[in-house]
């Protein structure tokens, strides 16, 4: 992988140039201290040291509400709607890139989801090595501390005024060099970046699942009937916050609305999730997951086993967002996996 060294002052003009072609989004801290990806403005102060972005990035690829069709009621015809603005996400942490890579695989599996695909292809991803780790994160223990695909550029801060930038795609190279040639990184700079990544990994290692993550699917298989599901789900509000905030959850509902003249209308999809009570409800009021316990268990099986069975990775990148979002404190894959592991007396 080619790497360049980029100085801090080089970045604002670069963003300004990119913003001419792309909707550029950067991590920005709000007045209350929460960081979110927001449209870049020349005045925007990038939150270089953020630990986790409050909202996940899936909304850039799977918008919370996305039109799929425009239809004509009288003629009963429909036209597909596919919007894909050119966008550039700057400063994405590796675990979030990993989450996007998972969505890529799941949306492409079988029949590709074209609406997703188009948005994804219209996106440039610029990764960034984190400087801080959120107290609730456990990404280093679920194999999400590093990524080697899915991004176009990867920034690592190696000094207060410079970054080591790996470029993965021709697009990434073109964009990085858009304001002229840059120096190739030297060996010491590469070493500095490596150290930086190792240091943050060491910080992240302080919190995590207490066993090798590849054991999780087998662990789950042993615990379908665990009392844990009922105990935790007692406090479940069935509010769906945990799935809405999760960067790897992609479930949706499909609905439609006619225009005011009742002549045309649009069909759209909207975020949905397995924690919501009517998710598996069918005709005759038969619900395949009637109890909060059933739904709660399903979500952890998705994270710990079912997704693994499909793509060989856990369906959780350890960002900790669901842990924070759950107002009753029960959404927490790390705690669930660790509790089940301990129940097997596997603790050393």
């Amino acid at each position, binding site marked *: 992988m080619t790497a360049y060294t980029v100085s801090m002052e080089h970045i604002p003009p670069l963003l300004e140039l990119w913003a001419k072609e792309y909707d550029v989004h950067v991590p920005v801290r709000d007045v209350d201290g929460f960081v979110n990806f927001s449209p870049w403005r020349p005045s925007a102060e990038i939150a270089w040291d953020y630990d986790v972005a409050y909202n996940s990035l899936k909304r850039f690829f799977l918008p919370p509400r996305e039109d799929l069709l425009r*239809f004509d009621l009288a003629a009963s015809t429909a036209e597909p709607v596919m919007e894909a603005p050119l966008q550039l996400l700057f400063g994405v942490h590796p675990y979030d890139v990993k989450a996007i890579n998972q969505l890529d695989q799941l949306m492409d599996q079988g029949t590709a989801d074209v609406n997703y695909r188009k948005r994804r292809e219209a996106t440039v991803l610029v990764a960034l090595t984190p400087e801080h780790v959120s107290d609730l994160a456990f990404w280093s223990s679920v194999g999400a501390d590093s990524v080697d695909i899915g991004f176009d550029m990867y920034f690592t801060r190696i000094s207060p005024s410079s970054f080591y930038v790996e470029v993965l795609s021709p697009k990434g190279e073109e964009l990085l060099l858009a304001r002229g040639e840059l120096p190739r990184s030297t060996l010491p700079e590469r070493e500095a970046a490596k150290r930086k990544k190792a240091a943050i990994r060491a910080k992240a290692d302080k919190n995590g699942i207490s066993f090798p993550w590849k054991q999780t699917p087998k662990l789950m298989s042993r615990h379908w009937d665990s009392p844990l599901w009922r105990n935790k789900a007692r406090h479940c509000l069935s509010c769906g916050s945990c799935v809405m905030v999760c960067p790897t959850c992609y479930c949706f509902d*499909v609905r*439609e609305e006619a225009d005011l003249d009742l002549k045309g209308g649009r069909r759209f999809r909207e975020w949905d999730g397995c924690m919501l009570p009517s998710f598996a409800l*069918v005709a005759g009021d038969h619900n395949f997951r009637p109890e909060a316990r059933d739904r709660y268990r*399903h979500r952890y099986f998705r994270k710990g086993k079912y997704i693994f069975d499909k793509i060989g990775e856990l369906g959780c990148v350890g960002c900790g967002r669901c842990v924070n979002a759950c107002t009753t404190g029960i959404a927490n894959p790390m705690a669930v996996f660790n509790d089940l592991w301990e129940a097997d007396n596997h603790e050393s």
Partner: protein
Amino acid sequence: MSPKNNFSTYAPRPATLVKKEKLSDLVSLFEFEQDNGKALAHKPGQFIMLSIYGIGEAPFSVSSAPEAGNARFELAVRKTGTVTNALHDLKEGTKVGIRGPYGSYFPVQKFMGKDTLFVAGGLGYIPLRSLLRYQLKHRDEYGRIIVLLGTRNPKERIFVDRLAQLKERTDMEIHETVDVPDKNWKGNVGVITTLFPKVEINPQNTFVAMVGPPIMYRFCIGPCMDKGIPSKHIYVSLERRMKCGLGKCGHCQINGLSACVEGPVFKYDDIAPLSEAI
């Protein structure tokens, strides 16, 4: 993977309702014709997504048998909510949107030369009818055909005239029962399991195709195995909530499987270990 042209995953294509026929108080048969003039090219057991614009989209099993060159196909639909009510109100000649066919199907090749035991509960007869009609069309490629059919009460029976015709045939058997009879019902009374003792089969040579309400599987798989039918010969079709039909929306998950892609037709062996299946 890069999508060529403007192909959309979720855009239906037009079809026209050509014929509508009442089958019971709540169920009607709908015959559609694809506007592109092409055959639907489905396999028995597959489903389509049907759109009535402004109202919504819902999954329905194709009830007719596949037929090369025939752009027409049939759905039998029970009125139960938004889309199904609107469908029942459609006039012949109205256009709808369809996507599909989707999902897995009964392995008609594997069934060749073997006997088939159909176990149908209520509306479960709708997808099984596609398989039955396919086999009857290729009658000499299949062994015995035995149909067990259970309905809640005589009023809810569907395809009544057609069943009467089938009962005349000597190259197949139909055993029917209702849970609760009325004054005029002369046939068997009792749940569908009461039909099992009535049929003699050669278990090693028999395949089972079973579709019914969720509760039925629990009671009918046992008797099939008791008769000595190998579990790998038993096929069931499982209905779940479906929104996309393509393994994306998540609604139809049965443990780790998607009922719309890996199903709706499953080999019993594949779902027996799954606690959410039946």
